[in-house]
């Protein structure tokens, strides 16, 4: 079993190194194939571990080696394979495998094909460290590793020039990459502080040992630690106010968006809350804040998706919104439901993104859904996948999204947080509307792309086949919710609905369903019809206050630019000119100049005339005598 753990962990690493060997050479298809096989191996190992854990129930703890030994401070490279980490491992490696195969087709024409696979596999490796580590420091290493890989991959097309915000809200890939990295750094500081607080007060960083000491910690420390850790989680999972980077991260290649910015990395924040659940459970105020923030973000992101025209940004908003759902569940104490939604979401969202990638590929990187329409006849396979994924996202039975999302909404009702419940139900309706708006705009309705000179073509067959596991899982995951509950609650706390809620469960489900279906129907009436009822742009409405507010993302990016980025740049300019140039540089320069000048001044002594030297020697001797005399006086 131990070997399987090592294979699951290091196969992606080997894959990354292998692809890196060819990083500078031109496109070699076998690099993609070998990388996919490595990741597939990691997936199979993870699956075997999951089966082992499911059948026998024994958690695997291994310590690879000692890492830091300094005084009382001991950290080892330890890994744990328990119910939570094995779920994450399986989800991560499965989606990664699909995305690797997909990328062989998607990145077909890219000259940096090999480099792409190297980064992608490095990401998988970091993610595996993140989920498998048995201590906070290992988690942090993985956390930073995925951050770096995310930066590399968002900025993969770094050669694209900057544009104005009006032309492209994300400016350019390199700009978006830097934004993501910097925002995450800020949040990671919080995470680091949380880890320090825990270490100072417990003297250890291992999850089990930290949690064992919880009863002896006072409440203030627990609250501080959870707040600090959650700030880290907010950055990685793009929760308000750190959310702006996620939509801009769509500048990266689509497989990256599917893998990193939808299915895996952005869920790391949720994973942290689930992993540290005893800690968060001990701080109910913080947990309630998490739930409220999650609900707010779910609604907030969904509202922005209502008017977005960019296909990938719509899906990115839906990711934000679903992350909000996960945090709502985790904050309300239903940790296993959050994890279940995480897994289900990973499947259907990756599928949705990859489908979006197919569309983008077919439309030669055009992402404006106003320029599409009626594409289902050209792209039947993609249409089926994206509809399926959208149904799952909208939360219709019997697909995965229905079960997990419904459970979250039911939790909100069960906790008597009715305001959160209403928000989540309304958001479910909005989710259905915007996801089907995007499907109908792209694949149904009037054909708007042919007049614009686009001739879309379906993606390669093998790519469509590679996507099928996700489609199957997006469909069936929800059916095994009961089994999964039994499996996961061996580690995570049970979450029981009260008798009252249980009684109303089917009615609650119907309410959600009603909202979802009406969202879809509305979207259909508005966008899917052709001929006389066909959708037309309403320029007048687009000038309206709410439309503009949503379109500009509530002016939050603008606000950040005006009140954070620009003042910061101004302050930096002042510091550069006044402090750096005039104080720091000047000090260093003047020391050097003093040596030059004294050298210049005394160079004249070097005459070559022995008599002058002797004179100077006598001067030196006299000086020494004088010094000796003076010091003798003071002794």
């Amino acid at each position, binding site marked *: 079993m131990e070997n399987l753990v090592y294979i699951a962990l290091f196969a992606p690493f080997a894959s990354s190194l292998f692809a890196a060997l060819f990083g500078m050479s031109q496109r070699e298809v076998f690099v993609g194939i070998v990388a996919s096989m490595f990741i597939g191996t990691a997936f199979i190992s993870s699956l075997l571990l999951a089966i082992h854990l499911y059948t026998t129930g024994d958690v695997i703890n291994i310590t690879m080696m000692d890492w830091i030994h300094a005084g009382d401070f001991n950290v080892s490279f330890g890994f744990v394979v328990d119910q939570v980490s094995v779920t994450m491992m399986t989800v991560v490696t499965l989606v990664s495998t699909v995305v690797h195969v997909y990328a062989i087709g998607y990145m077909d024409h890219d000259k940096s094909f090999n480099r792409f696979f190297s980064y992608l596999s490095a990401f998988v490796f970091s993610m595996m460290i993140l989920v498998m580590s048995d201590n906070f420091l290992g988690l942090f290493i993985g956390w930073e590793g995925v951050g770096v890989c995310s930066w590399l991959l968002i900025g993969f097309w770094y050669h694209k020039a900057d544009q104005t915000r009006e032309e492209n809200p994300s400016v350019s890939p390199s700009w978006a990459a830097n934004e993501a990295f910097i925002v995450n750094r800020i949040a990671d500081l919080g995470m680091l502080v949380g880890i320090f607080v825990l270490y100072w007060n417990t003297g250890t960083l291992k999850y089990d040992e930290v949690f064992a000491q919880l009863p002896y910690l006072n409440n203030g420390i627990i609250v501080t630690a959870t707040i600090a850790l959650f700030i880290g989680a907010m950055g990685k999972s793009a929760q308000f106010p750190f959310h702006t980077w996620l939509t801009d991260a769509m500048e990266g290649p689509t497989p990256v968006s599917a893998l990193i910015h939808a299915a895996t990395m952005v869920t790391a924040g949720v994973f942290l809350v689930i992993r540290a659940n005893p800690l968060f459970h001990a701080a109910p105020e913080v947990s309630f804040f998490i739930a409220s923030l999650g609900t707010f973000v779910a609604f907030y992101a969904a509202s922005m998706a209502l008017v977005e025209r960019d296909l990938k940004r719509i899906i990115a908003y839906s990711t934000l919104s679903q992350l909000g759902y996960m945090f709502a569940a985790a904050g309300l104490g239903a940790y296993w439901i959050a994890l279940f939604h995480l897994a289900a979401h990973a499947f259907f969202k990756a599928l949705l993104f990859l489908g979006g990638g197919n569309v983008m590929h077919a439309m030669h990187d055009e992402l404006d859904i106003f320029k599409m329409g009626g594409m289902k006849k050209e792209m039947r396979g993609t249409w089926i996948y994206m509809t399926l994924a959208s149904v799952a996202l909208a939360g219709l039975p019997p697909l995965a999204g229905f079960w997990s999302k419904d459970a979250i909404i039911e939790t909100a009702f069960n906790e008597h947080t009715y305001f959160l419940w209403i928000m989540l139900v309304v958001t479910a309706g909005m989710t259905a509307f915007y996801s089907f708006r995007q499907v109908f705009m792209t694949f149904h309705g009037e054909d708007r792309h042919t007049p614009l000179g686009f001739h879309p073509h379906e993606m390669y067959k093998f790519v469509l086949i590679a996507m099928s596991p996700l489609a199957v899982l997006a469909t069936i995951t929800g059916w095994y919710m009961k089994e999964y509950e039994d499996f996961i609650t061996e580690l995570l706390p049970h979450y029981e609905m009260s008798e009252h809620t249980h009684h109303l469960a089917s009615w609650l489900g119907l309410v959600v369903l009603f909202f979802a279906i009406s969202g879809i129907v509305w979207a259909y009436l508005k966008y899917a019809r052709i001929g006389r009822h066909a959708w037309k742009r309403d320029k007048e409405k687009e000038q309206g206050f709410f439309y503009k507010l949503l379109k500009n993302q509530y002016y939050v990016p603008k606000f950040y630019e005006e009140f954070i980025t620009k003042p910061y740049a101004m302050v930096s300019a002042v510091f550069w000119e006044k402090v750096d140039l005039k104080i720091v540089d000047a000090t260093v320069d003047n020391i050097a100049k003093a040596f030059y000048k004294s050298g210049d001044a005394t160079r004249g002594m070097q005459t070559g*005339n022995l008599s002058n030297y002797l004179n100077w020697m006598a001067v030196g001797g006299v000086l020494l005598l004088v010094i000796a005399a003076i010091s003798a006086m003071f002794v």
Partner: protein
Amino acid sequence: MIGLSHYLVVSAILFSIGLVGVLRRRNLLMLFFATEVMLNAVNIAFAAISHYYNDLTGQMFAFFVIAIAASEVAVGLGILIVLFKKFGSLNLDDLANMRG
């Protein structure tokens, strides 16, 4: 009565004369003489102090200095002859060829 201080004063005067010679003279041969004067000034001081303390070490040391001075003069004069043959002069100002 001639005491230690008289000897030391003579020694100091001689040493100063030698030092001024080293500083002021331009001729290498004269520089040698000046250093010999300084060495002998020191020898006087050694001998006087040695006698004052009734300790022979100082006088022994004076002999060492004389021996070394003799060998130094032997080697030094050899070098001077070579220099004179090469430059035709022993004046330090003529020998200097660096432009500091």
